[in-house]
């Protein structure tokens, strides 16, 4: 009985060949977009909290005492550069070039790790040198939680990149699985864009004290 007419298959089938869906978008991609939309609200609420409490700390250190804009600009540049390598990885696998994809995936992960490493270094400097901890004042509370949430997102992205890299070594990421790389790319670019907002709101706009 021919019963599979134009019927969207489950997840497993979906990765092998794109089944016809009602919107034309693959299920996984639509799901990723919805998740990212939902995640926007997560960062929206966190950034709102930060903005609401800007300049409300009763005791120091204050943002102007601890920030090294030059340093953070460089690490921001590193993170943004990783979006380029992510695009190159996707473009490589869409052409079926697995070797190049592996190189660019690894490069993206390395750049991401450089950024997270820079963040860890920044946190430890603030903590030991400037004596700013999570509990020192409202600035410490909101700064560490907001940037920490973002750093966790980057770390999860790195984990996904390295997982795909590992799978591709086993030859399991082929041209027809390019969507997997594309999905991670969507997530990765989203996390980068969020960082642009955080960098602007937290570092670049002066608080006054």
């Amino acid at each position, binding site marked *: 009985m021919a019963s599979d007419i*134009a019927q969207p298959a489950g997840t*497993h089938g979906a990765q092998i060949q794109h089944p016809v869906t009602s919107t034309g978008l693959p299920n996984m991609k639509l799901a990723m977009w919805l998740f990212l939309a939902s995640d*926007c609200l997560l960062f929206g609420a966190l950034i709102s*909290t930060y903005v609401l409490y800007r300049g409300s700390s009763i005791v120091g250190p204050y943002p102007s005492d601890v920030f090294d804009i030059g340093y953070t600009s460089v690490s921001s540049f590193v993170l943004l550069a990783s979006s380029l390598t992510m695009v190159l990885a996707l473009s490589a696998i869409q052409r079926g070039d697995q070797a190049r994809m592996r190189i660019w995936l690894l490069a993206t992960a390395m750049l991401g790790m450089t950024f997270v490493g820079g963040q860890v270094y920044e946190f430890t400097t603030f903590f030991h040198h400037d004596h700013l901890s999570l509990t020192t004042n409202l600035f410490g509370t*909101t700064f560490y939680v907001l940037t920490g949430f973002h750093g966790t997102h980057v770390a999860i992205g790195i984990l996904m990149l390295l997982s795909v890299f590992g799978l591709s070594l086993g030859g399991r990421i082929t041209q027809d699985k390019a969507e997997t790389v594309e999905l991670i790319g969507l997530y990765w670019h989203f996390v980068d864009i969020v960082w642009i907002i955080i960098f602007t709101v937290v570092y670049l706009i002066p608080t006054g004290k």
Partner: protein
Amino acid sequence: MASVSVPAGGGRGRGLLARPTATTGFWSWFTTVDHKKIGILYGITSFAFFIVGGSEALLIRLQLARPDQNILKPSVYNEIFTMHGITMVFLVVMPLSAAFINFLVPLMIGARDVAFPRLNAFSYWVFLVGGIFIYSSWFLGGAPDGGWFGYAPNSVVDPSRGMTFYAIGLIITGIASTVSAVNLAVTILNMRAPGMTLFRMPVFVWMSLVVQLLLAFSLPIITVGLVELLFDRRFGTHFFDPAAGGDPVLWQHLFWLFGHPEVYILVLPAMGIVSEILPVFSRKPLFGYQFVVFSGIAIGFIGFGVWAHHMFAVGLGPVANTAFGISTMIIGVPTGVKIFNWLGTMWKGDIRFTTPMLFAIGFVAMFVIGGLSGVTHAVVPSDYQQTDTYYIVAHFHYVLFGGAIFGLFGGMYYWWPKVFGRMLSEKVGKLHFWMMLIGFNMTFGPMHILGLQGMPRRIQSYPASLGLDFWNLVSTIGSFTIALSVLIFIVNAVSSFRKPKGMEADPWDARTLEWSTTSPPPEYNFAEVPVVHSLDELWHRKYAETEGGRVVPVAAGGSGTEAHPPQGDGHGIHLPGPSYFPVLASIGFPVLGYGIIFNWPLAVAGVVILLTGLFGWALEPSAE
């Protein structure tokens, strides 16, 4: 497409665990990814929590039956009413709605399953472990006792561990709901059968879609609030600490920015259910289908712009209060539109007063009362008087019990034959309905009076001299009447399983696709994927209209569905295989939660379990 009817073989040695194969028997419930079985799991679990939360309500009513009683001491009373609220909102009405949405949506849109079946199972298990996690607080240092909305700074300085359990537990159930929201929204948008355009979808599917989007966009906000609460409690941060410059009102904003859409998350599925039941038993199409759909969408949108009406007494200032007073009145409009659509559906209909129909009518009537008392809150000066009194308690029980719970019970009577292949007794069902209606109005009607007399919420007792005794006693008697009616329902449910299985496909002469397949539906839902030509597809397959406007049955053998729909044998239909990983990964969350509260190595173990589950899941060979 290479396909097998039943998942064959136990994987091919790749992956962490051999893929489970059993699709029947006790253990298959742990590995199932079938949306119908998961729907039933949601139903059973939430009903169990309904009994627990209901028992907590009875304890509250016992304590308040007479003045100056001390059946529950104040600290325990605080825990009981907090847990009653958390249970009924997060562990009863939300998952009970999820039960209907899971079971029905794929059937109604002509799909074989949801978009991501294993993710669906994961959502259920995470919800279950989240609920158990919250309830384990009773044995691990005290249950949450700061009210279901956990206002700071009270929730921060509270010395028991309860509110930490509250924060982590609700984050866990929130993850479950977010995951399921994405999954179900993709299902509705992407998995529709050929011809099932958006405006041929049953209203229940529409309302489900609106609810999934509300969940996806409101849960992250409360998650941030809960994380901040958790950090304040566990790590000494200052989010809600006025002494360090923090602002407890931030919590209220974050909470109600989620909390008000949540109200519609609770009631829209019930509205969808009622919109399915009323046309069937009035033998008329839904009056103004588009209006009902657009009203539902409008409610979803405006629902994000009214949150501060929960905070009129906080002191946000006249401009904010006026703005939110107006937006609250505006949201009454699409709700009112729906009421008239339902009345218009019944108007001059050929009404059959079956049990589902009685519950649907009960829903409309009770929701009108709750809606009207809700509009009185939109008037700011009036709200100043009502804030934190029993008037508020009366109001939200009329919309959430008289509304949501009545609608959900109506849905149970209506779809029971579809889900289990057996009918619930109509006679017992009607007894259940009338007892519940009377008990409900006895319980919550008098609370309007008590509230206007000034009785505050969340007090453990009241002195005899205040003149509050009579209506409190009436309310307590009413609550036990409700309990009795629920007992009657349980008897009805259990005795339905004594009847032989094997219900006709379409016992109610209904209108939507789920009734075109067998009762209960086969694992693959439809032997042949239906092709849809109109709204109320099944009705149009069964009936045609003459030129004079008379409805006549389509001759047998036409394009209609026969009494016994084509069974097919299910060969050649590829279904996703069951999996251990959703349940395994879900266990990581409570372990991580206990770890955050008690010791860090445990938290690490939780993350390891979660990651193991997720990696095993990603690498799991498909069953082909």
